[in-house]
């Protein structure tokens, strides 16, 4: 059981402040790294060099880009819905920080250890749809609106297989060792919705990707769609919709969308790590190293996928979700429940 910041600091205000600071730092570094890494991966796949000018191997390129974005004029188009337009980047950005603080990255310390961590992460993930639709609607731009509508349809659809595949893991956790696990002389009643309990259930046995390979693949694909990554990047779809929902955003407002996208990717990868790859579990190296290594491995696969596959057509996207992923996830959860019942009696 990891200790939380509240256990360490006692005072909830100090704990919250430290937590927000830590999460923001990690997320910012992650975004700086991921954007650079994405460009490098795309360059490698396309036999290019990628950013090389700023810093060694172009590592400081994102910093330069960020300074450029900060210096840009914030254009506000005419005829916008002002509250929606200005609130949208924040709505996308704020839940990211919240859900990142829920993930247990280490055996001994976590930012927060809630019994409904999994539900909260999915809930905060759902906020992104609201933000995207607000951006598209408030921009008074037909391309932005099209992108936002696509995004809503896509994210709501893909949330179904996402949740169903995660649910099979929850079932597994509840059934692990009769729902109890011993750590030292402490016996913990496992709770399938607690993210650190999910990890603990995997540390004693095999990782859930071994028991649930189909769920793992479905979860990964649904994460790609939820974070609007290629080949599911229809809400942005540069070649069709200019930039989709953030067409009318410039400067650091656009920067916030970008921050949100890459942070969502990071959170999706971390969540997949917790659910299927055993979280902090690993030999020799300390827990957080394993946790972040696995997460970045998944992020790398996401980038690899992005620079390999072309974008789906919208009907293909929907057919894939409703005709392939959702039935498979339902069958998977039924089989899991049946097997657990048979094994555990």
């Amino acid at each position, binding site marked *: 059981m990891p200790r939380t910041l509240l256990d360490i600091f006692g005072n909830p205000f100090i704990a919250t402040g430290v937590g927000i600071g830590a999460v923001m730092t990690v997320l910012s570094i992650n975004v700086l790294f991921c954007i650079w890494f994405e460009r490098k*991966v795309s*360059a*490698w*796949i*396309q*036999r*290019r*060099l990628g950013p*090389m000018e700023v810093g060694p191997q172009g590592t400081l390129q994102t910093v330069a880009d960020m300074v450029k974005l900060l210096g840009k004029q914030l254009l506000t188009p005419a005829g916008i819905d002002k509250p929606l337009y200005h609130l949208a980047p924040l709505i996308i950005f704020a839940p990211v920080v919240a859900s990142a603080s829920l993930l247990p990255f280490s055996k001994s310390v976590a930012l927060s250890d809630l019994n409904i961590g999994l539900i909260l992460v999915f809930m905060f993930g759902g906020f992104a749809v609201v933000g995207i639709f607000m951006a598209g609607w408030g921009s008074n731009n037909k391309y932005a609106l099209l992108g936002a509508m696509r995004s809503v349809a896509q994210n709501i659809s893909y949330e179904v297989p996402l949740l169903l595949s995660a649910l099979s893991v929850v079932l597994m956790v509840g059934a692990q060792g009769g729902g109890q696990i011993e750590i030292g002389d402490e016996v913990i009643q496992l709770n399938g919705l607690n993210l650190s309990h999910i990890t603990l259930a995997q540390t004693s046995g095999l990782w859930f990707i071994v028991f649930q390979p189909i769920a793992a*693949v479905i979860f990964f694909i649904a994460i790609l769609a939820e974070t609007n990554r290629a080949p599911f990047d229809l809400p942005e779809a540069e070649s069709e919709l200019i930039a989709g929902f953030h067409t009318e955003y410039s400067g650091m407002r656009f920067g916030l969308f970008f921050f949100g996208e890459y942070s969502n990717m990071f959170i999706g990868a971390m969540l997949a790590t917790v659910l299927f790859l055993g979280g902090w579990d690993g030999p020799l190296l300390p827990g957080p190293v394993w946790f972040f290594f696995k997460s970045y491995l998944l992020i790398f696969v996401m980038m*690899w*996928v992005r*620079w*390999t*596959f072309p974008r789906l057509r919208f009907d293909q996207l929907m057919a894939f979700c409703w005709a*392939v992923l959702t039935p*498979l996830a339902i069958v998977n959860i039924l089989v899991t429940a049946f097997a657990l019942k048979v094994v555990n009696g």
Partner: protein
Amino acid sequence: MSYLGSIFSGFKTLLTGLGITGKEIGGKSVTELYPHVEPELPEAFRSVIQLVRFEESGSHDCVACMQCVKICPSTCITIEGGKIEGIKGKRASEFEIDFALCSLCGLCIDTCPTDTLEWANIYDDAGQEREWVYDLLKPHEAFEEQYLTTRRAIEAKEAAEKAAKKAAVAKAKAEKAASEAASQEASPEKSDTTSEADS
């Protein structure tokens, strides 16, 4: 194909695609860091022309024959040339090309009788004025004095050799004439008999 079969085969093709791009990761890049790395130019690369520096003479071999000036469709070549003391033939004293006018057709290179024109490998040049004149003789200025000295020496030597040869030939001719005159005197009928036999 069955529902599950199509899902399976579709998934397999996805993995094939990932394999194709995955093979490129960590491979060698085909692009280069342009301004920092000198590009490998193709053999037929065309830019401005330059005068060849020949190994044996140590300089160019432009004889100011004006062939390139005449053939140039863009009239961008200017050549001045003339005699230089101690050397046979003409030699260019000014060779300029206005690159702003040049169309890179290469006719000057093809037409050059002494093959002293070639493409230069200048790939990164840019200009901001209408006048964009290259002085092709400039890179050869440093070698010109040396060239002229050796050339003069060679030509003086050649002239001396020629004079000696000429003298030798004249001498041999004189000797031959003398000997022929002597033999003719000795047997005057011999030539008459041969001419009769031929006829």
